[in-house]
């Protein structure tokens, strides 16, 4: 038995012993997620226990180095862990912007002291983070941000406003872009800083979306003190840190097209009926659905191919923009067709029958996919410039 198989056996045994039965099986919805943090809530005590044992072992961040609390696993071992967790249908012990977004940036750009201070807490689920990038005046044009940080020796005083801060009202700390040099060209002069959301002067307000309540907030900074030791990367070079982080986010959003379950065409067959050959009676919808199936299959394969190209180092990193663009447009098309298949039933906004308009809310929510994490237009600009080398792009 080779090392990897030994690791698999050990892991299986440990998971069997440590994963509570309450934490196996699919999560019912997003609200069942464990986010950790100072004010963490857990659906059951077992969920807290599951987070804590996994966190202690570093397996909430399996590939991070052990000196920062991570699992220290190799890529192959991490795959084994994931497959063993799938085997017993183990739920994710911890959902965390700290792990998904900030951590990789800290590992790359943080000082030793910063890594030591923040990463172990993140791994153990003791701190919950939010992201302060977008501003009301700077959407696609992220670099046009106006939140000002004025130098006061060992600290800055920050004033400004962020939008689209997911879970700002629940987060403990924020990683945030602020303008530290108002005179520099706009991509320069921006710094990437961390601070506590409990700092005086920070306030938040949830945003209501067209799809209903949301995790997004507006976040206001009114003379907020930020310690200079919490600057990540170089002063005025926060843009490099942010870009690195955004690339992660893009791949995540683009990939959301991957949805299991019954084909939409079969759902439509129930509401619309079929002819004697079993073909959907509505030709126009059937044609659109088969186009969607073809494009969705091709897109899944394209994601797989890009993954393989990345491994083989055959690809320009800007390829993430292609996946983000196509994946989010595909999501939108898919939900339009789900709504068409659902007919008037799916248009009920409050009935129990429609689960309070679940399909309609999902449909509306997908409209943000081509906006958040860089609009489709921005992705097309990036493709034109970096992959096609078109002049002036």
């Amino acid at each position, binding site marked *: 038995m080779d090392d990897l198989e030994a690791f698999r056996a050990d892991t299986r045994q440990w998971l069997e012993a440590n994963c509570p039965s309450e934490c196996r099986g699919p999560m019912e919805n997003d609200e069942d997620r464990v986010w950790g943090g100072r004010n963490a809530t857990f659906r059951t005590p077992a969920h807290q226990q599951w987070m804590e044992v996994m966190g202690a072992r570093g397996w909430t961040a399996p590939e991070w180095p052990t000196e920062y609390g991570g699992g220290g696993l190799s890529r192959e071992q991490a795959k084994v862990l994931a497959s063993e967790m799938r085997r017993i249908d183990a739920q994710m012990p911890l959902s965390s912007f700290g792990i998904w977004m900030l951590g990789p940036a800290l590992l790359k750009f943080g000082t030793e002291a910063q890594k030591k201070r923040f990463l172990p807490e993140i791994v153990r689920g003791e701190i919950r983070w939010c992201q302060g990038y977008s501003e009301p005046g700077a959407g*696609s044009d992220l670099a046009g941000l106006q939140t000002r940080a004025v130098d006061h020796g060992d600290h800055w005083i920050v004033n400004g406003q962020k939008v689209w801060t997911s879970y700002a009202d629940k987060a403990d700390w924020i990683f945030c872009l602020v303008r530290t040099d108002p005179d520099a060209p706009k991509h320069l002069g921006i710094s990437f800083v961390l601070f506590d959301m409990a700092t005086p002067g920070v306030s938040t307000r949830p945003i209501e*979306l067209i*799809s209903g309540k949301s995790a997004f907030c507006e976040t206001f900074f009114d003379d907020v003190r930020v310690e200079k030791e919490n600057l990540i990367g170089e002063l005025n070079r926060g843009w490099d840190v942010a870009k690195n982080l955004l690339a992660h986010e893009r791949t995540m959003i683009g990939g959301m097209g991957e949805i299991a379950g019954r084909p939409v065409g079969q759902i439509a067959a129930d509401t*619309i009926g079929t002819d004697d050959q079993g073909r959907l009676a509505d030709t126009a919808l059937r044609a659109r659905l088969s186009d969607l199936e073809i494009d969705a299959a091709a897109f899944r394969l394209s994601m797989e191919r890009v993954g393989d190209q990345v491994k083989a180092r055959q690809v320009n990193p800007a390829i993430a923009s292609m996946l983000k663009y196509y994946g989010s447009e595909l999501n939108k098309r898919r939900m339009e067709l789900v709504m068409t298949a*659902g007919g008037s*039933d799916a*248009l009920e906004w409050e009935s129990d029958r429609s689960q309070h308009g679940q399909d309609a809310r999902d449909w509306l929510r997908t*409209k943000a996919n081509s*906006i958040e994490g860089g609009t*489709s237009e921005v992705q097309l600009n990036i493709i034109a410039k970096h992959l096609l080398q078109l002049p002036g792009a």
Partner: protein
Amino acid sequence: MPLILTDEQTMLKDAADGFLTENAPIAHLRHLRDSRDADGLSRDLWRSFGEMGLAGVIIPEAHGGSGLGAVEAGVVAESLGRTLTPSPFLGSSVLSARVLIDAGSDAQQTAWLPRIAAGEAILSLAVDEGAKHAPSRMTTTAERSGNGFRLNGEKGFVLDGHIADALIVAAKTDGGTTLFLIDPATAGIEIERTVMVDAHNAARITLRDVQVDADSVIDAVDGGEETLNAALNLGRACAAASLTGAGDQAFQITLDYIKTRKQFGKLIGEFQALQHRSAHLFTEIELARAATLAALQALDAGRADAPFAVSVAKAKAGRVAELAVQEGVQMHGGVGMTDAYDIGLFMKRVRVLNEWLGDPGFHAESVARARGF
């Protein structure tokens, strides 16, 4: 007949636009929605609409209406599409009024048409059953029973059904389709309000052994199909007009937005990619407008190809409005996703209007059959 509005029709349009913009702008919809208004619409507003002659636009003057035609009904529907005003116009003043005008007995007409025209009474037509519009697959039945009929079935997507003063119910009888004019308080009728995604009003109606008299029949027993189709086609053409109004208004607010919003140091309306998409959308809206007006004129002229023209209009206006709201939200960017901006309300309204009385796929099917393929 030129494919433009006459001077009188333009005056009507200005009157409707003016009244709605002043008395029922989008804030009116928001207020009804956010206060969880029990009716989901303003009866006072509707009476004012009646006083202006707009609730009875197609009702003969003898019954207190304005005695106008489909084009004028479409003009009003388009205005309502621009302001997203919840009102009984489509269900009561268009569908129900058309049925009673075409086929109601003197008693039925006298009882209801003046009250519809005055905005005093709200009538609803119950035709849809499943999740998709398919009048040819209707299963609600009316069996002979005593002096009248006994109805059984389930209806859905009945506009304003929760506050209807009378229901017109389509049901299968032995030899065809029959329309019944029924008091919603009749035993065996259950009405569930179903607030829709666009905060407009609809209801599900269950009929369990509902006993009605013979004089509740509209027109002849088994003879309701033609009347029903005429009403549905007027409803579809007016829905096309509302879609054109909503789509065009969504486009206008988007144009205003991209002419003022800056990104990367430029107005986003300066970016050529958005300019071309806007120009394309403008063209599509003009096509939808032409197709809609032509369908309304064809109905007024009683042309044999009016059903074809209506399907073209409903399908085209629907697809175009869909494009308009999708482009609208996208060009607004993040703020377009917030409830605070209006563009999302247009997206919701357009989807409901698109689904109502046959979505673009339904009407594309009619077009294909009419063209013989």
